[in-house]
């Protein structure tokens, strides 16, 4: 249908529309008009993606000069592909309605592992291997060597692309990852570099967060994207962790050992080159003196050429004299390495700030701040001069030099923690130096500064106001949308007690309590008899799940559950879990029914949807608090309190509740879907916990569903499931949660719609 969103003609590729989609588009339009940032929460399964795409594409067509590009960031590869497929649907609708093929270019970009078509390279299993192998075939000096030595193996796809690919722009159209590969195969061009080149003039780019948030990658890939772009972070409820991860470094003794080897190799290589080709080193030195930047042509394929710090922090001066010659720099690295080794030899936990660390290093081994800042850049220059093919081997020394650059660049927002052993095993020495970022706003700041509109959206962003605070930006719109429902297809229940009135909770004091574990087991057992097809149960942590499973096994609870359903359990091994997941779905498909035991914050809880019969009930055992004893977390909490005035408890509860909401939200993926959401912990009944759940879940929790016993839960579930199993047709929804164009345009409905958006 064609919609009129405050004067903007929006093509929407469906015959009907959910009221909240209309409302969402309205808010989005206002955000774009204001050229500001927005935070929008809308339940999953209400067609968030298609609403976003429809509106922004319409906006791009209407105001091609104001919004030149849409950068859509999502989290996982399947999600990226889903977005592109939805976009394809939209574009097909455009073509059908307007009768002309528009010249939109949209494409997905992913890592080499997902795009490579080189027969040998693409057969490697791990991303890192693929990157390394690719680099060894396409690095600038390798290709330069080929002029001298034609036997040097190179990647013919890249060569072909380099020769002709750049002259001809990618024809307009929608390119998913597989489409890019097909195109690449047909033309004989490398799809990865083709995509990287094409994003510069594409109208829509879909890729992963890291390409924008991780400075090491962003600098390479996203540097030249236009400022007049709209950036969308979908599934953004975890965005702060992504930011923090990309700026944090951990150094173990193993890292240092490997680094030592790397430095030795560097030394030897320098020695060798000195004997054969001293001119090369002299040339490098001369360049460094003059402060010449590397020629941009070569940059593309040299993946290590990235600075770990944000672009505006990189110094625009020449490398300081002390580390200009290769030998000096290697010596410098050795000193730095020895210093780190000595720091790891501690017997007690040390925590210090970056300035403290810098002062200490200056006192002990006389290393200045400035050469440290250039460490990463200097190493890159050296690696290239030495023409080292397999850079994957040099990951340790790269890590160390990145750490050096980071620690000397940022004086705030980071902390250094040295732990001589793990807390659980104090007898085994395993020293680790954590250099952790505590301020997610550091990594995302350039994004907010650079792009005119940044939209942060997800199904679970409550409470909305916390994101602008921890990410340090000022949004022009913040809105939470509910799911309008013709029938209440979600049923949140809070189980607080067992049948024997024992309070159910995963809190630390009662964690090992057999009564609680048994009652949890009974809950699962009873539900397994009532709920059809699939049940997903989430535990607060992996260790907790292991313990509970073991004691359920001893008590024979699992055996009884097996009478009703098959049991699959998430393990720490991703491949094994994938298999378990597939078998779980198979068991749901063939009618046997299955239970998946899984972990909140785990991979399953983050990336897998349990639509329809794959998840008729989700049980959340306990409140998934993060492990609070970790020093890194403590430091972060302290920082949040000092810098952003966020109380520790508020943040912890917020964090726990967003993960709980993520877990239970996995079961509802649309209005025709239905599912139980069982919160098995009495603490959920408290207002401070409940209030932090997304509004679309919260509004279905009434007083009757608080602090239930297991029996009551089973009764309510039975009732709910029986009701939901009745046929549900389109006519039942029409006019309430599903609108035709005429219904949408009625005065009354427009008024209702304004209430859907809950402004904060």
């Amino acid at each position, binding site marked *: 249908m064609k919609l009129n969103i405050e004067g903007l003609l929006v093509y929407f590729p*469906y*015959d*009907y529309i*959910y009221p909240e989609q209309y409302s969402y588009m309205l808010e989005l339009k206002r955000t774009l008009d204001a050229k500001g940032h927005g935070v929008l929460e809308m339940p999953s399964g209400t*067609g968030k*993606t*298609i609403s976003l795409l429809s509106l922004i594409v319409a906006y791009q067509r209407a105001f091609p000069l104001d919004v030149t590009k849409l950068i859509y960031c999502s989290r996982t*590869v*399947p999600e*990226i*592909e889903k977005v592109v*497929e939805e976009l394809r649907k939209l574009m097909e609708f455009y073509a059908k309605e307007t009768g002309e093929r528009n010249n939109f270019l949209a494409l997905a970009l*992913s890592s080499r592992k997902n795009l490579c078509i080189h027969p040998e390279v693409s*057969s490697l299993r791990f991303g890192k291997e693929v990157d390394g192998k690719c680099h060894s075939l396409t690095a600038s000096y390798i290709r330069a060597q080929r002029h001298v030595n034609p036997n040097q193996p190179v990647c013919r796809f890249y060569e072909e692309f380099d020769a002709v690919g750049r002259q001809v722009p990618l024809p307009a159209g929608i390119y998913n990852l597989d489409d890019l590969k097909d195109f690449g195969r047909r033309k004989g061009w490398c799809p990865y570099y083709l995509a990287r080149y094409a994003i510069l003039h594409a109208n829509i780019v879909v890729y992963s967060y890291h390409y924008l948030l*991780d400075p090491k*990658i962003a600098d390479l890939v996203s540097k030249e994207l236009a400022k007049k772009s709209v950036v969308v972070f979908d599934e953004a409820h975890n965005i702060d*962790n992504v930011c923090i*991860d990309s700026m*944090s470094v*951990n*150094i173990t003794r193993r890292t240092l050992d490997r680094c030592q080897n790397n430095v030795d190799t560097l030394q030897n290589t320098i020695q060798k080159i000195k004997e054969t080709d001293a001119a090369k080193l002299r040339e490098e030195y001369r360049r460094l003196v003059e402060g010449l930047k590397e020629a941009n042509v070569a940059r593309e394929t040299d993946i290590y050429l990235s600075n770990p710090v944000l672009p505006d922090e990189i110094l625009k001066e020449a490398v300081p004299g002390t580390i200009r010659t290769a030998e000096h720099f290697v010596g410098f690295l050795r000193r730095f390495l020895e210093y780190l080794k000595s720091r790891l030899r501690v017997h007690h936990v040390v925590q210090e700030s970056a300035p403290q660390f810098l002062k200490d290093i200056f006192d002990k081994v006389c290393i200045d701040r400035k050469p440290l800042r250039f460490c990463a850049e200097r190493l890159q220059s050296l690696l290239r001069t030495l023409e080292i093919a397999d850079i994957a081997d040099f990951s*340790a020394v790269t*890590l160390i030099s990145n750490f050096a650059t980071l620690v000397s660049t940022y004086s705030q927002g980071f902390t250094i923690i040295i732990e001589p052993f*793990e807390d659980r*095993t104090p007898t085994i020495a*395993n020293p*680790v130096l*954590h250099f952790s970022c505590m301020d997610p706003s550091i990594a995302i700041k350039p994004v907010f500064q650079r792009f005119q509109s940044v939209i942060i959206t997800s199904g679970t962003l409550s409470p909305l106001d916390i994101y602008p605070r921890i990410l340090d930006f000022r949004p022009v719109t913040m809105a939470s949308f509910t799911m309008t429902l013709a029938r209440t297809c979600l049923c949140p229940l809070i189980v607080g007690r067992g049948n024997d009135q024992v309070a159910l909770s995963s809190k630390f004091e009662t964690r090992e309590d057999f009564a609680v574990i048994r009652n949890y087991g009974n809950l699962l057992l009873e539900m397994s008899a009532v709920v059809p097809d699939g049940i997903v149960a989430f535990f607060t942590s992996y260790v907790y799940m*292991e313990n509970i*499973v*073991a004691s359920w096994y*001893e008590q024979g609870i699992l*055996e*009884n559950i*097996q009478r*009703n*359903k*098959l*049991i699959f359990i998430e*393990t720490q091994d*991703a*491949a*094994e879990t*994938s*298999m*378990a*997941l*597939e*078998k779980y779905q198979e*068991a749901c498909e*063939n009618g046997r029914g*299955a239970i998946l035991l899984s972990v909140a914050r785990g*991979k399953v809880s983050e*990336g*897998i*949807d349990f*639509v329809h019969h794959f998840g008729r009930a989700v049980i959340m055992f306990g409140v998934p608090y993060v492990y609070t004893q970790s020093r890194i977390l403590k430091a972060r909490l302290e920082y949040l309190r000092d810098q952003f005035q966020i109380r520790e408890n508020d943040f912890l509860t917020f964090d726990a509740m967003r993960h709980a909401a993520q877990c239970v939200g996995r079961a509802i993926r*649309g209005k*025709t879907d239905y599912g139980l959401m069982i919160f098995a912990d009495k603490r959920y009944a408290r207002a401070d916990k409940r209030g932090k759940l997304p509004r679309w879940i919260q509004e279905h929790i009434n007083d009757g569903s608080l602090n239930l016993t297991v029996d009551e839960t089973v009764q309510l579930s039975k009732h709910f499931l029986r009701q939901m199993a009745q046929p549900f047709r*389109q006519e039942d929804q029409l006019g309430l949660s599903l609108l035709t164009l005429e219904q949408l345009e009625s005065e009354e409905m427009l008024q209702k719609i304004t209430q859907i958006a809950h402004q904060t």
Partner: protein
Amino acid sequence: MASLSEEVLLVVKKVRQRKQDGTLYLMAERVAWGPEGKDRFTVSHLYADIRCQKISPDGKAKIQLQLVLHTGESTTFHFANESSALKDRDATKELLQQLLPKFKKKANKELEEKNRMLQEDPVLFQLYKDLVVSQVISAEEFWANRLGGINNTDPAVVNNKQEVGISGAFLADIRPQTDGCNGLRYNLTADIIESIFRTYPAVKQKYSENVPHNLTEKEFWTRFFQSHYFHRDRINTGTQDIFSECAKQDEKGLKSLVIQGVKNPLVDLLSLEDKTLDEGYGICTTLPSTSNANKTVKESSNSAIIKRFNHHSAMVLAAGSRKGVFTSLLTASSSETSSTDGNSRDSDFFQPPVKKVKLQEAIEYEDLQRENRPKTVALNLKKSDRYAHGPVPLQSQHYTTSQDIINSVNYIRHEMMNYKPNLTEVLSSTAASSAIAALSPGGVLMQAGAQQAINQMVPTEVQGELKHLYVAAGELLRHFWSCFPVNTPFLEEKVMKMKSNLERFQVTKLCPFQEKIQRQYLSTNLTGHLEEMLQTAYSKFHIWQTRRMMRKT
């Protein structure tokens, strides 16, 4: 004593049967008992007839062994030799245990097959009742060319019965019970053993390797329940356990499954993440170096339990659909087959379709789309069998959709509403009534339809009976005609027998029926055709017989 052409495998003296002392003989094909001092057997059972044997519990005063036959009868032997009764009984039991299965399979299979055929085919069952139960022909004759025919047909048709899956909790059903003195008792039934074998092929392999050469069955299962393999939470203590190999094999199978990866890209956690952080970056890392070294015993036993549950569920699931993926699991250790299923790494050609479909499924909002399907009408059946056996349309390729039917009904309704009789062009009343008379049953134009009226004029039970008669007669005639050309003495004999069978049929079945219908319907000659068929057979027989006589003379 007996005709010693049979091989006697075991002789047990002092065995009482019906309070009579005697001797029990186990022979190659049967078990027999004769009272003391007599020269013949009063009890004799073929092994094939025996369904099972039962023994009295260990503590009982009387040491007995009971044989239950397929017919449901049973014979009980009481071992009365005071000194060696128990030993005798056990020896008998062991021997029977080995002998019975050999015969059982054959007998059971046939019996089951016959049973199944009779159950699945009501017509056959009726025929069986008509011919065998009323003793027109013997059971062997009846089955003689039926079973053969069945065995030749496509086995897929025979085995199309849906296989029953395995309960996920079959291991839970073998709850151990304490027997009072520090021991555990496990109750195993044939079903559970079957389940174990189907779920854990490795155990089955072990079983066939070891039983009965190295271990008795009992020992085997005792070891099974003691093994680490059964109790996964116990840490493996030694390698002398025969099941440790099973565990390894399972592990291998699991690993090969894991390596094969998943077909649905949406659940593949390995390729979920687009760009993983390099090693050393990131915040919450459980460091790889610490994974194995400092795991406590408890932790590793916990993870063993988890592994076991995943494996168990996968195997149970696979046992239900054995044909598919899991056959490769058994052979996966030899790894050459794993590439044949098209699921290997480089199969780029197979992946996209699955992926495309899954992606499309994932982005579909069915309620946002208008339903474009043509409107349908739900079928409301009063008699479903009439629907199933309804008339076959002559032009089977010319179907009309429900939409068309609705349209035409609407059209007709519309027509009818607007119908105005044109009174100037009606028929005269005489012409009209003669036309109606001609079109009524019995009228000039309805002659052709008169014969069909039979199924309206005869009550259903007579119809049914007639049908059965036809089927039975057909069967007998088939036997009869299949004897021609008569070229062996056997066939000669048979044709004579069939002739008498036919005559008997006519006398015992057909004539009573004829009388019955004559009592009710005087004129209808329902059995005319049947008699005609019989007459043809008789005349053929006579011709054949006279010719034979001529040849003989």
